[in-house]
């Protein structure tokens, strides 16, 4: 029983962290139809910033600064690497995203010297708590609630504010929205800002829980978060969150299966198999809308 609880606990917390990244993917894809391959690496860079900033500044100052700098990074990436390619084929933008991801990983290798870096322990979050006989970190308990809170705030933003309305309009029809006088570039920037801010929060939670950061740390969570976004139906925020929790939980359950089956190595492969199955049988995901191509 204890064991089951511990597996579910880590599943929920992993899922929550994926959810925060997945929202960034789903928002960007909803609007630009771009798989932002660099998003996972932005998440990794946010983690590194956390390390370098807390080394010289107090936590209360450095954490907000991490979020701000990550937002700046996300915004800059959009302006420099994606905006010039607005009229180019979708493939070019995706290649540009892969290029940015490559650049961020290589720069991180250069800066850290390829050494795994240790994330600082954050008071309270890093503290341990005993839950039904299983010891765990506070961050594990807090993550799902924080995610829910952020998602609620985000849905208010998207459904009740003018910016949110513009975002919805742009994701429905890019060209018409432009004709209707929506400033596309600002909307896209806002999207990237929200996505990056959430990735920064995600990085704080994730790396508090799993404190070693290598330049490749962002790639896997990034890809999985993308799968979660597809699973939930791309463009749908609740979909992405539910998808992320499901994937997080499935993954930890697979890892937790009896060793004699020797299937725990397939926890990542499972995510991708799920992706292929979803794409083939229900390409619009759980909550996405089916789109028909106009001929």
């Amino acid at each position, binding site marked *: 029983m204890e064991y089951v609880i511990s597996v579910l606990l880590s599943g929920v917390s992993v899922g929550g962290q994926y959810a925060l990244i997945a929202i960034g993917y789903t928002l960007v894809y909803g609007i630009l139809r771009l*798989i932002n391959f660099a998003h996972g690496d932005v998440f990794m860079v946010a983690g590194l910033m956390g390390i370098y900033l807390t080394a010289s500044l107090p936590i209360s100052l450095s954490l907000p600064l991490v979020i701000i700098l990550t937002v700046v990074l996300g915004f800059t990436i959009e302006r420099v690497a994606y905006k010039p390619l607005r009229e180019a084929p979708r493939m070019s933008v995706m290649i540009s995203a892969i*290029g940015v991801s*490559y650049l961020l990983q290589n720069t991180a290798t250069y800066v850290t010297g390829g050494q795994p870096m240790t994330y600082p322990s954050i008071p309270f979050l890093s503290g341990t708590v005993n839950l039904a006989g299983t010891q765990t970190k506070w961050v594990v308990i807090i993550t799902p609630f924080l995610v829910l809170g952020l998602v609620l705030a985000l849905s208010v933003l998207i459904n009740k504010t003018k910016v949110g309305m513009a975002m919805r309009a742009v994701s429905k029809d890019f060209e018409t929205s432009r004709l209707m006088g929506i400033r596309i570039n600002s909307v896209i920037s806002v999207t990237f800002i929200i996505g990056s801010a959430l990735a920064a929060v995600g990085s704080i939670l994730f790396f508090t829980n799993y404190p070693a950061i290598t330049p490749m740390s962002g*790639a896997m969570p990034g890809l999985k978060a993308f799968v979660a976004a597809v699973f939930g139906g791309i463009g749908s925020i609740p979909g992405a969150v539910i998808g992320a929790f499901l994937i997080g939980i499935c993954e930890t359950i697979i890892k937790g299966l009896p060793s004699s089956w020797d299937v725990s190595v397939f926890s990542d492969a499972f995510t991708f198999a799920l*992706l292929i199955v979803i794409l083939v049988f229900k390409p619009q995901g759980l909550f996405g809308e089916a789109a028909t191509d106009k001929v």
Partner: protein
Amino acid sequence: MKKSKNYIPALTGITALLLFVVLLENISSIIPGLPSVFDPTSPLFTVLKKAAVYSLVAVSMNLLNGFTGLFSLGQAGFMLLGAYTYAILTVPAAQKDQVYYLFGGCAFDFSIVDMFEGIFGSGGAGGAFSMILGVLIALILAGCVAGFFAFLIGFPVLRLKSDYLAIATLGFAEILRAIFQWQKLGPITNGANMIKGFPTFSSFNITDASGNVIVRLSTFVPFLITSLCILLIVLLIHSSYGRAFMAIRDDEVAAEAMGVALFRHKTLSFVISSFFAGVGGALFAMYVANAQAKAFTSTMTYEILLIVVIGGIGSVSGSVLATFLYVACSEWWLRFLDSELYFGNFKVPLLRNGFRMVVFSVVIMIIVLFFSQGIMGNREISFKAFRKGKNKQ
């Protein structure tokens, strides 16, 4: 028609290139005292070999991404299949126990090369002939296995739209890697351990009885195989099927309306591209002298994709050119960026380990953003263009 005549200069060019490679490889033993760069062990030849291998993979990816408009990121996965097929089939049976030491030998207790040695004898010319034949057949089988898996996976995923296809094939490659690393399949794949001991490029060097190399062919062989494969791809691109692929790339709906069976042609392109990626994977295994699933990561696919972009999506010669530049820069010319450099007492700033890759990725971003056509766009280097230039003068 006129078209067929254009192949004559192209063939002459390829033959000349191959002869040049043989000459280059052996020049240090013919003319002593040349700069060390011509030594058979110099980085020049390592780079040439790797570039030859990569250019095949890049061209195969270009066939899919550039000529058929299918954005697949599964290239590393198909290379993995090719590499393992080749390795498993050619490791001499006598060495299998040593290589598969964790698993008490391999489930496939035979080797194609051994099989032919049984027929033609293992020494002298018979041995050489057996090895060449065995390697060739293993290479073809490597391609076939990759092509077969492409056929299987293509059935569900080729119906997907561009970026979904990309992510699904990427996922497929990751799944393959996990399977090939699985310890339970160890008797076949050697689990996490690398498979080694199979014939590599150096096995093609002609040696005398005491093992001294007389004629080096270790760079020539990858060039020869790659040239043949690329020639096949070019012939395909210039055939009726190649035109149909390009029609799909330009406008899928129109292609279908004009009678191009969309799914069949997409599958065809995917299988052919994967076949050559499989052969490329086998050549890669020959280049690194081992096969290990760890090497075939998505980073490798990205690297090849970036080569294709640098060379120009839709240009075969661009891909080849870009591969040689890319490999030479990343593995040889730019290596100096990785070590500290002093001019007198002045220490050049920034230079330390990892800087090479940073510079490299910045250059790639510049190309992607500002020179999105790549080196060649969708044009080709051809003798025709050459002649045109002459006529203008």
